């Protein structure tokens, strides 16, 4: 039942927000100790503000959870939850790969690897076409960011000069 699933998602979100609220209050306690150590005296110190947000988060989460239990998501006016798709996994993984590669392979190779991975793993492109497209777009981006805009990237990383 989609409605049950939507309710489960909302309750899981409420649980997550409640945990976050508790984490925020714990951090507020830690900050309060730091404030006490520093000898600061304020009407509303850095810890109080964090605690205020933590309590507000817990209060609104409680309202959200009660609403999720009492009435359907549709009745609450929220749009339906879209089912998750596998398609964004490839670009997401490729972005993580890009971030990992960038410091040691450099901008040009990391960009090429990202584009080649996203395009080649999309089964609708032949590998040769994907590689050629990745190469062309990489050259374009190199021209724009490195040559034209002069962004100081590690251009070729450890492979470069």
């Amino acid at each position, binding site marked *: 039942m989609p409605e049950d699933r939507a309710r489960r998602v909302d309750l899981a979100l409420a649980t997550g927000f409640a945990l976050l609220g508790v984490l925020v209050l714990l951090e507020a306690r830690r900050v309060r100790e730091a404030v006490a150590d520093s000898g600061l005296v304020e009407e509303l110190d*850095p810890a109080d*503000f964090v605690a205020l947000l933590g309590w507000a988060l817990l209060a609104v989460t409680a309202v959200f959870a009660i609403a999720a239990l009492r009435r359907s998501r549709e009745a609450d006016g929220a749009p339906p939850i879209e089912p998750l798709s596998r398609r964004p996994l490839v670009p997401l993984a490729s972005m993580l790969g890009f971030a990992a590669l960038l410091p040691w392979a450099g901008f040009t190779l990391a960009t090429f690897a990202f584009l080649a991975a996203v395009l080649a793993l999309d089964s609708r492109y032949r590998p040769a076409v994907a590689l050629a497209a990745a190469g062309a777009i990489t050259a374009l981006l190199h021209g724009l960011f490195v040559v034209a805009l002069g962004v100081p990237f590690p251009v070729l990383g450890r492979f470069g000069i």
Partner: protein
Amino acid sequence: MDAGLLQGFANALSPVNVGWALLGSLVGTLIGVLPGLGPASALSILLPVTLHLPPDAALIMMMAIYHGAQYGGSTTAILINVPGEASSVATCLDGYPLARQGRGASALAIVAIGSFVAATASIALLGWIAPPLANLSLLFGPPEYFALLLASLVALAGFSGPSPVRGALAALLGLLLTTVGLDPLDGIPRFTFGSMNLMTGFDIVPVLIGLFGVGEVLRSMESDLKAVFVGRLARWFPMPSRAELAASAAPITRGSVIGFVLGLLPGMGSSVTTWIAYDVERRVSRTPERFGHGEIAGVASPEAANNATAISGMIPLMAFGIPTVPALAIMLAALQIYGLQPGPLLFEQHAAFTWTVIAAMFVGNAICLVLNLPLVGLWARIASVPYRLLGPLILIVALVAAYGARNSLFDVWVVIAFGLLGYLLRKIGWPPAPLILGLVLGPMFESSLRQSLAMSGGSLAIFAQRPLSAGLLAVGAVAIAGAAWFAHRRRARRAPPDAPDWA
């Protein structure tokens, strides 16, 4: 104002700055025509690129991107029934039927002319209203600023989506994110977990790129666009007939007024005002039954409202530093990056710069009108290119741009993390706008609250004792009541799923 504006035009019309405005209009329209990507996405992805330009050129280009993205959304809404952004959804209702009837060129021309008229009138009002309003902010102390920020956040959380509670949670999350790093007044570390990268907190640029750029692209990559450009345009430079122009004059005027007035209020983004304008137009029409089947007024009024809203939101931004929609939050971030603080000092200490930006709005708007009419066929074809090709290109530009802003690898990771968050928020139907506004306004929110309580010796009564802050808090209370009432009515009516929502 006149001398300042003339000087502004002299700067904005220099060949170099016109060149940047031209480039911004093109790139903004290019991103605006892509489904799901509106002004906020376009500005967030391109903000780091503009940081490599001189300040005036950067803001001129940002303004042109803003206008271009507004225009782009409506082009694809009419020609291929794919709204480039949420604010163009209303345009699809009559725009696409018009295109199917072979009147696509006329609809596009009416949209362009209506948008130009609405934006030009709104910019003129902006130049007239913003400076005196900015002087009003001299009356604002910390309590008044806190009350204004609270009222704005409450209004945004309440009206930014169908569920006020979800909006409130998103806004609180945004405020919490601003507490990461050293606190703004005493330098006490919070939520840093011993990480040096977290000491300075989250930079706004990669967070914006992640939430609005990457998040939207990831969702759009899920579906392969199978849009069809309905036929050829009859003329390379579309122009409406005299009868169509006459029939559109009143709707454009009404749409402009609705968009301008409502656009001053926090949470009233274009996707809300366009629906209101469409609804008003249908109610005042002598032939309401023709709406939804190709009525030119159904295109003219929402698009005029769209552009008027986009400009009128600049008034609270320039006068008080309060962005009413996410795209303007990005503009605020851009202003702050260049050390410009909205308010009275913006018009006094940076008068030349500020009037140049206002003049650049006129220039960018005119460029969009002249440039986009002959290029509508090209934009429609670009919008039809599958996302599996465009998506990776936009993602890599977003990542590279985020890195280039501060040469920080940490920012690349932030983009990915917030991109995933933005994607998930969209999947579960939560509005990302309150989160980003909370993030932008958070530091000022905390500072003004703490300063107010320091002034009063810890008494909250200070907010009620000062008339201006009490009035603003009353506005916030009315906003809460209004949002709750609208939510209750929506529940009672069981609103259709395509009710306006803005991202």
